[in-house]
């Protein structure tokens, strides 16, 4: 017999009176559910201390992790999207852009910068998934192409950090041609013998995989990242079966010969710097 009986059934605490820890103090790992202090999480390069889950992070965090003293010069920072097709789906495209700019504080889905990584010069272009799913439109293509051109002119190695659902439908044909534009510049970079490292992070799919992301001298990834051309849902619908476990994970892609190595984010900077040092 219980000494405590609930008199009223179905009592619910309204959200506003629920007591919660202040936002941003604790991080809960979405994979193993372990809670850790955000400061600790940041010190571990945004990986889980328990299961090593690599949290999805954006250009700001990657620049902090990779550039010495977080010092860098951003390239073409003010480039922003046009609306070449006056595209309207459920929203006008320019409205969607404005809303996303406001929400994320970003101008588009990629940022490029020049700085030093363990004293080695490097140009890094890094995608932001929070900006319309990291989709590739004219601005993404142009900024990457210009970053490659900058690397080419200054003979500096190029690191591309991809994180994208693929093409930006609202720019249709223009979006498609960004695959061509970026690949053209990479062809020139390759001819000049300048190293190109492509880091594919969670997730990298679609037109990004089918262009610059797969064209590195070194294609590398982080543990557990989703990498593919077609998205898992599309493949499932095509073959009419469930996909095997681990399908399209970085480990799977490595096993099939399309990645050079997988690197823990905590070791990333040192490993990349050593690699570039060897190529000098």
């Amino acid at each position, binding site marked *: 017999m219980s000494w405590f009986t609930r008199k009223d059934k179905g009592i619910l605490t309204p959200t506003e009176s629920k007591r919660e820890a202040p936002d941003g103090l604790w991080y809960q790992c979405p994979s193993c559910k372990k809670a850790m202090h955000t400061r600790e999480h940041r010190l571990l390069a945004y990986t889980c201390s328990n299961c090593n889950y690599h949290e999805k992070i954006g250009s700001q965090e990657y620049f902090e992790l990779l550039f010495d003293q977080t010092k860098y010069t951003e390239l073409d920072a003010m*480039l*922003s*999207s*046009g*609306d*070449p*097709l006056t*595209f*309207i*789906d*459920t929203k006008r495209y320019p409205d969607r852009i404005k809303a996303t700019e406001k929400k994320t504080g970003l101008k588009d889905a990629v940022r490029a910068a020049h700085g030093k990584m363990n004293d080695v010069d490097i140009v890094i272009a890094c995608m932001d998934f929070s900006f319309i799913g990291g989709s590739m439109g*004219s*601005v993404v*293509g*142009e900024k990457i*192409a210009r970053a490659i051109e900058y690397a080419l002119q200054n003979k500096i190695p190029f690191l591309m950090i991809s994180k994208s659902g693929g*093409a930006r*439908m609202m*720019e*249709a*044909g*223009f*979006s*498609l*041609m*960004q*695959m*061509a*534009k970026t*690949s*053209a*510049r*990479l*062809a*020139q970079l*390759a*001819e000049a013998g300048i190293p190109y490292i492509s880091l594919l992070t969670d997730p990298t799919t*679609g*037109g990004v*995989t*089918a*262009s*610059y*992301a*797969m*064209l590195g001298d070194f294609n590398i990834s982080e543990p557990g990242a989703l990498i*593919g*051309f*077609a998205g898992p849902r*599309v*493949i499932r619908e*095509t*073959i009419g079966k469930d*996909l095997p476990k681990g*399908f*399209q994970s970085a480990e799977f892609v490595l096993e*099939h*010969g*399309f990645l050079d190595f997988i690197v823990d984010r905590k070791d990333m900077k040192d490993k990349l710097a050593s690699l570039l040092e060897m190529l000098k």
Partner: protein
Amino acid sequence: MRTLLEFEKPIADLELKLVELKKLAIDNDVDVSAAASSLEKSIASLKKETFSNLTRWQRVQLSRHPERPYTLDYIENICEEFIEVHGDRNVADDKAMVGGFGKIDGQTVMIIGQQKGRNTKQRQMRNFGMPNPEGYRKALRLMKMAEKFGKPIVTLIDTPGAFPGLEAEERGQGEAIARNIRDMFMLKVPVICIIIGEGASGGALGIAIGDRVLMLENTWYSVISPESCSSILWRSWDFKEQAAEALKLTANDMLGNGLVDGIIPEPLGGAHLNYGLATATVKKVILDTISELNKFSADERISQRIDKFTKMGVFQ
């Protein structure tokens, strides 16, 4: 039996009437020339009206017309001689991508293209014109071979997309397409790309980096099919017409936006109505374009090719 699209039916009805009228005249030995010529006139004006006002979705339908000439039909009609070659020298021969050396007016040209099937059995064999990675690698192998022997390259694009299958992922569909796009920029020989049907996304672009990219009048070329666009942006397949409008995917749209270099006219009503005329037009365009491109050195062509594609995009 002809397959008729919805907007082709009124024309076909009139054409049937004309045939019946002529038969009647012969059977009964009466003069119907006045009636026949008036009927012919209405057919001509209806055709003109229908096909000068096609919606974007109707163009998409024409580009997929089951009787439309496919890559091998063009090859057969254009080349005096054609030797098909197979395989990517790695895992397989992809039947969705065909290629080989052909002779056009005595000139050797490498022709490569996606191939669709005409009936159920063929469609299965050709995988509906959706290449696997080995198809793209086969295409690149043939292009490099053409470069080695100094022969111009013509690619014919007609695909609903690169195949989104399990094995395609395992064998690196993304990598195969990416490599083609990059390496096609550096090809020393002239490259002409012609969209002859569907030009769907990366699966099309994987063989569509050229000095001239041309579209037949009733084709589409974009980053996604109207159906898939509808399902992603509207969360339903029912908005394909709107999606086609929004994507601006027709030859006119793409030329207007500077994303392709030209349009090749089709016989009135579509290429499927007159293979002879459709393929002869394409043949003439290929020959003219090759001689135009031969005026430049290999280096000039490559830098113009790179300049053209790197200028594409709209931003502030």
